[in-house]
């Protein structure tokens, strides 16, 4: 054995631990780490992009209240106070039953519609131990038109009042600033006014947000209607707006050529033309309430 080689080794053994003590401990700590799954949060500020639902869910035990207004057309001019003379309202409540299941109800003045829906989160975007590039959610909703029958003398079936909507939402938060979502959607109407009009209307929606400031986002949302009677006679829906977040509230200010706030109507009855200035100003005001049980929180707080 060569002593000359042994000496540096001895020195290392002797001095090493003292020299690198804290860094060593830090390395040790990092070595102890178990890989965890890191779920993506806050893809959107709230449960809506604007008109469309987003892949965001109300957390379990959380009640989200949404007050939505859509005013008349901006091109009504000063006489109509740029549309503000006509106000349409939807009042909605959504509740988180589990982390992946939400239930909601709403009432809109347009066609005196009541709506109810179930929204289920199927996949959550994540990195780490379990990597998932996208979030996926499913929406099924039913709308009931409760206007008095136009012709009370003919045979009117209660089922004629119903419409159904099914929607798949595929979303991804690309970065802290940019999130996008695709929405293949089907609207089924049990009764349509004429034979030429189809009962089932298919459309593909795309929406997204760009975060401009921590509490401010710019949102865009567009629905392309698949060719058919509705596509020929009505307009695709384009909405542009901003989200302003203040603690428990999100204010969504919206410009859209659609005036309706339920899918069955805005995806089949939008006749406003952006080019002609048929733009409706509106807003969604969302507020969250902690309504449910606090089991897991109480457990974590204990001690």
């Amino acid at each position: 054995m060569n002593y000359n080689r042994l000496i540096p080794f001895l020195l290392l053994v002797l001095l090493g631990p003292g020299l690198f003590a804290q860094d060593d401990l830090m390395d040790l700590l990092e070595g102890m780490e178990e890989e965890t799954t890191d779920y993506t949060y806050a893809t959107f500020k709230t449960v809506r992009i604007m008109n469309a639902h987003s892949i965001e869910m109300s957390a379990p035990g959380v009640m989200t209240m949404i007050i939505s207004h859509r005013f008349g057309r901006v091109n009504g001019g000063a006489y109509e106070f740029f549309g503000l003379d006509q106000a349409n309202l939807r009042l909605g409540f959504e509740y988180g039953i589990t982390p992946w299941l939400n239930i909601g109800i709403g009432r809109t003045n347009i066609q005196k519609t009541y709506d109810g829906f179930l929204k289920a989160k199927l996949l959550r975007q994540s990195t780490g131990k379990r990597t998932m590039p996208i979030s996926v959610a499913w929406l099924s909703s039913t709308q009931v038109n409760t206007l008095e029958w136009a012709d009370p003398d003919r045979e009117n079936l209660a089922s004629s009042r119903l419409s159904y909507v099914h929607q798949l939402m595929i979303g991804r938060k690309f970065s802290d600033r940019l999130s996008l979502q695709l929405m293949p959607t089907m609207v089924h109407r049990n009764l349509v006014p004429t034979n030429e009009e189809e009962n089932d209307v298919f459309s593909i929606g795309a929406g997204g947000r760009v975060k401009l400031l921590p509490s401010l986002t710019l949102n865009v949302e567009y629905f392309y209607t698949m060719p058919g009677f509705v596509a020929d006679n009505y307009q695709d829906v384009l909405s542009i707006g901003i989200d302003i977040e203040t603690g428990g509230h999100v204010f969504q200010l919206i410009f859209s050529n659609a005036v309706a706030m339920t899918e069955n109507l805005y995806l089949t009855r939008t006749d406003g033309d952006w080019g002609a200035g048929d733009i409706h100003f509106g807003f969604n005001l969302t507020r969250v309430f902690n309504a449910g049980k606090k089991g897991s929180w109480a457990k974590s707080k204990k001690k």
Partner: protein
Amino acid sequence: MKRFILIFSLLLFGAQALMAQKYVSRNGHIWFYSHTPVEDIEAHNRQAASVLNTETGDLVFQVLIKAFTFEKALMQEHFNEKYMESTKYPKATFQGKVSNFEEVDMKKDGTYPVKVAGTLTIHGVAKEVSVDGQIIVAGPELTAKAKFPAKVADYGIEIPSVVRENIAKEVEITVDLAYKKM
């Protein structure tokens, strides 16, 4: 002679390994409390990891920011997304030393007041801190406890004006780490 040096070095190596006693905590409890006239907020993290070298008094710990739980889900989201930016800065760490560790008698059960000084890194901002704490020796187990204030602004965390009344400028951090011999 060759044999002697070999045995000598092995002894040295072994002795150092024996002396460098390390205590480890994997599920330590760290929580903070923010008090304002408007609102009291607290968040708990039970996944704090720490290593304490009882030979030198060197102490390190780290917590995952995302593992803090709040009573309100939205608060937790805002904490991560807007204030702590936990995607960018996933961890808070402390790297330091118990300066009077020689006063802790590892062989005798009891509560020993200690001083801890080192670098606390939160939100990517490193700051020298010095806090008073306790080390509790109970047989083979060690517990380290400390409570200290931290100014939110010191760590470059911006609180928007609309919630400025709800979040304290200085939050109280409590550390409670139970160690086992490694």
